[in-house]
Every structure is written in structure tokens, then in C-alpha cells.
């Protein structure tokens, strides 16, 4: 496949498939590869490193064609991103059945998986990449929001309003924390080594302020507390330096966690 392909799902009420279940599968597969949604659409990667929506561009094209031809009483079978067959089923059966990245137990490891992937026999489907229902970063924000909300219910009689949340890591998954915290009314301080990651969150509106010292960060938090406002502050620093300093000063956060990405640990 030469040249970039830009995929956008069709919108609206006209379909090119014979039923809405097939049409929906087609549009959601395409939506997973929309440049606004996918991490690396050229390589069919949707999210999570190498989580793919289809095995190859050739397989992608045949899936789309198969879905357009699929009758309302047929089911298409997809084996790790490659369409492998279809059978007559019935009109309330699934239109597509998918199996991704499965290996027999004893061989279910990266050595074997990587070997098979290199041979073109499988792909990594992650979770919603290979099952064609990824919708972008809203899911991470919402999951983090629910976790913080549950912490508020369990420990603080209902909500995190006015509570001080201290955490580390504002990269990939962790980048949702400041927004999820302020949505719960909290005062948020996230320690992150890489200022570029904080800048990125400021730009997207997920984080309110950047601070370059613990003094500056704690002052922002204190001011917000006095004004009865929620706030999120990204502090440029290393948890291994900042947290012992927090302990030394006798500051005790209400909630403490960490989402420093595993590869940076």
C-alpha cells in the first residue's frame, strides 16, 4: 500500500450496506481509523501501542467489501483482523464475530505472539481497537472520573469537593487525572517530569495551571481552597524528590495515588 489513506466514517441516514448492523460495523471500523481518533492510522493502530483494527490494508478493504455484501441473515467471521468466511445464520444473530490475538495457553506469550505476527498470522487487538468501538480519550477521562467519585463516596461522605488530590504522571492514561479531579470538585496536584506533557494538558483544557516549584504549586492550591474553587496544577518535578519533601513539610493530601506510566517507572 503506497500513499497515505485518510479514513472517515460516513455520516447520516444513507447506508451502503444492506442493514444497519453491518453499516454500523463498517462505520465503527472506519471511525477507529479516523485520524482524529486513532494513534497511528497509517499502521492501522488505534491506541495502546500496537492495538489494531485490521490485520492489513488489504484485509481492511475486504472487510469493508464483505460488510457491504453481507445479507441480513449472514454472519461474517474475522480472525485477528482478517475476514476468513461467512455463513448463513439468522436475522437476529450477530452480523460479525471476531477473535483477536488468542493463543493456546502454553504458547500465550510475546515470543510466540511476535513470531506469529511477523508471519502475518495474527494481530494485537487491544480491547476496543480490534472490536471496533474505540471513541477516543473520553473513556479514560470517564473511568478516572468514576474512580475519583467512588473514592469521594467511600471516604469523604459523598464527594471530593475541596479535597486535595496528589498524584504523579500526566502522560497517556494519567493525563486524564486533572480533568477528572476538577470535575469532582477537587484541588489537584499532579507531579510530572516532562513539562511538555503538562503543556499538552494545558492546551487541551484538561489541566488549569503549570508550576515549577512545590511552593508555587501549594500556593495555587491554597488560594483555590480559600476561594472555594476547584483547580488542577501540573508540577514539573520528580515524585521521588517531591513526595519526600511533602512528607518533610507535614503536608498530608486527602487522596494520594500515582499514574506515572509504567515505562517511566
Amino acid at each position, binding site marked *: 500500500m503506497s500513499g497515505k489513506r485518510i479514513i472517515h466514517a460516513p455520516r447520516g441516514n444513507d447506508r451502503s450496506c444492506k442493514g444497519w448492523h453491518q453499516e454500523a460495523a463498517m462505520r465503527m471500523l472506519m471511525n477507529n481509523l479516523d485520524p482524529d481518533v486513532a494513534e497511528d492510522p497509517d499502521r492501522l493502530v488505534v491506541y495502546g501501542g500496537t492495538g489494531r483494527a485490521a490485520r492489513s490494508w488489504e484485509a481492511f478493504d475486504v472487510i469493508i467489501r464483505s460488510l457491504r455484501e453481507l445479507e441480513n441473515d449472514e454472519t461474517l467471521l474475522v480472525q485477528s483482523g482478517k475476514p476468513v468466511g461467512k455463513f448463513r445464520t439468522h436475522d*437476529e444473530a450477530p452480523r460479525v464475530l471476531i477473535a483477536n490475538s488468542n493463543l493456546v495457553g502454553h504458547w500465550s506469550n510475546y515470543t510466540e505472539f511476535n513470531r506469529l505476527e511477523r508471519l502475518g498470522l495474527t494481530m494485537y487487538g*487491544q480491547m476496543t481497537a480490534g*472490536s*471496533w468501538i474505540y*471513541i477516543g480519550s473520553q473513556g479514560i477521562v*470517564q473511568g478516572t472520573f468514576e474512580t475519583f467519585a467512588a473514592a469521594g463516596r467511600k471516604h469523604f461522605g459523598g464527594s471530593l469537593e475541596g479535597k486535595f488530590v496528589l498524584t504523579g504522571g500526566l502522560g497517556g492514561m494519567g493525563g486524564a487525572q486533572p480533568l477528572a479531579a476538577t470535575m469532582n470538585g477537587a484541588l489537584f496536584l499532579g507531579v510530572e517530569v516532562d513539562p511538555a506533557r503538562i503543556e499538552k494538558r494545558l492546551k487541551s483544557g484538561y489541566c488549569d495551571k503549570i508550576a515549577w516549584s512545590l511552593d508555587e504549586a501549594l500556593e495555587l492550591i491554597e488560594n483555590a481552597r480559600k476561594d472555594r474553587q476547584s483547580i488542577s496544577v501540573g508540577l514539573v518535578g520528580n515524585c521521588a524528590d517531591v513526595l519526600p519533601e511533602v512528607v518533610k513539610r507535614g503536608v498530608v493530601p486527602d487522596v494520594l495515588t500515582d499514574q506515572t506510566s509504567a515505562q517511566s517507572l
Partner: protein
Amino acid sequence: MAVHVAAMLALQKKGAVTFDYGNNIRAQAKKAGVENSFDIPGFVPEYIRPLFCEGRGPFRWVALSGDPEDIARTDRLALELFPENQTLARWMKLAKERIQFQGLPARICWLGYGERAEFGVAMNELVKRGEIKAPIVIGRDHLDTGSVASPNRETEGMLDGSDAIADWALLNALINTAAGASWVSVHNGGGVGIGYSQHAGMVVVADGSENSKHRLERVLTSDPGMGILRHADAGYSRAIEFAAERKIDIPMEPRARD
């Protein structure tokens, strides 16, 4: 890393509510000599599992029209149907202000057993009446109540020690297939890597037809219902009570272990 976790433990001792957020920091710190790093609880057993016991999990839907107005209509529907759910109300209000759509407009919120089927069928009705311009696609993450076995995350520290039992995820895919989801998938390795998890996806479409209504009623009941069964079987009393309240049929009486 060891210094970081030691400081977390010190703050925990002083009263900070402290939890691990799935990045394996406890195991790494333990390797580096912090013997008691697992005094910090994981976020799933601490906060998410009680939600799982009621079939609650990340529920999402997408407007095939591409029109954000259709999602705004479904946002209102959720608030109409579940006015007593304060977390949902807060999320819906703020998500509308703060979350930008990527690709087709979509919404996520956490709904439980009973709520998902009610909401799905109600969305189907809105499509039928033309209040929503094109069909709605309904699905979920695999980080969910009854569709995943992942001993380092979603099924960490199950009461009965069944963390690595993958049968539940497979049964989830099978029952959703029988119930008529629009598409169903069975995966290995999502989230935590090959060999470390088994999980299943499901998506069901609301196109306003009777056919869709049947599918939605069945699938949006069996899918979160698997989570109630799985947690009741593992001995979570909240799941056992919930199954009794909602008359979810469990052939062998589960035994509470908590």
C-alpha cells in the same frame, strides 16, 4: 521508585487515602526492597469492584448521524431516566462542557444492570420516532464487570482466588452471541499484554426496529448480568444480594465470602 513508594506509604500512615492506579508501581517497589508496598490497595478492589457487583461499568454509545445534537438528546434522556444518580448528572453536565468529540460523536457513562437495557430500548424508541436522526451504536469497554479475566487489574484479588479463571469472559461472548449482539469479539492480552488477560467485546445497534429492540433487551441484560453472576459466584455479598433483588437466576446458591 523505592523512595517514591516509601513516601506514599509515609503519607498513607499520616491519613492520606492512598491507592495504586494500575501502573505496577507496587511490584516494582517491592523488587527494589520496599517490603510493605502492597499495603497500598489497588484501585479495582478498592473502588471499582463494588460497582462491578451491581453490573455497573463503562457504557458508551455513538451517533451514526455524525450530529452532536443526537448525543445532546441522549444526554438529556439519561438525565430523564436516572434523575437520582448524582455522579451521572455531574458527569453529563461537565462532559458536555469539557469533552471534545473525536470522530463520530459519542458519550460514555457508567450504567448498571437494568439501567443499560432500559436506556438502550429508550434510545431505540427515540430513533424510531425520529427524535434522533440516525441509528445509535451501543457498546462498552472490556474493562468491565463480566467480560474480562485480568489477574493484574480487573480481577486482582478476587475473594475466592478465581483471578485467572477465563471461563467467564468466554461465557460472556457466547451469551451475547446467543442474545443477538450486532458484533461480538473474544480477545487475549488487552490492557496488560499477551497471556495476561482474556476478554470479550460486544456492540449492539439501535436502529429503531423491533429486531433491534429484541436484541437490545436481551444483550443489555445478559452482558451486565454476567458480571453479577461472576461476582456472586466469587462470594461478593453485594452481588449476591443484588441478584436476589433483581431475581437473576443463579442455579446453585452462592456463598458469601466477605
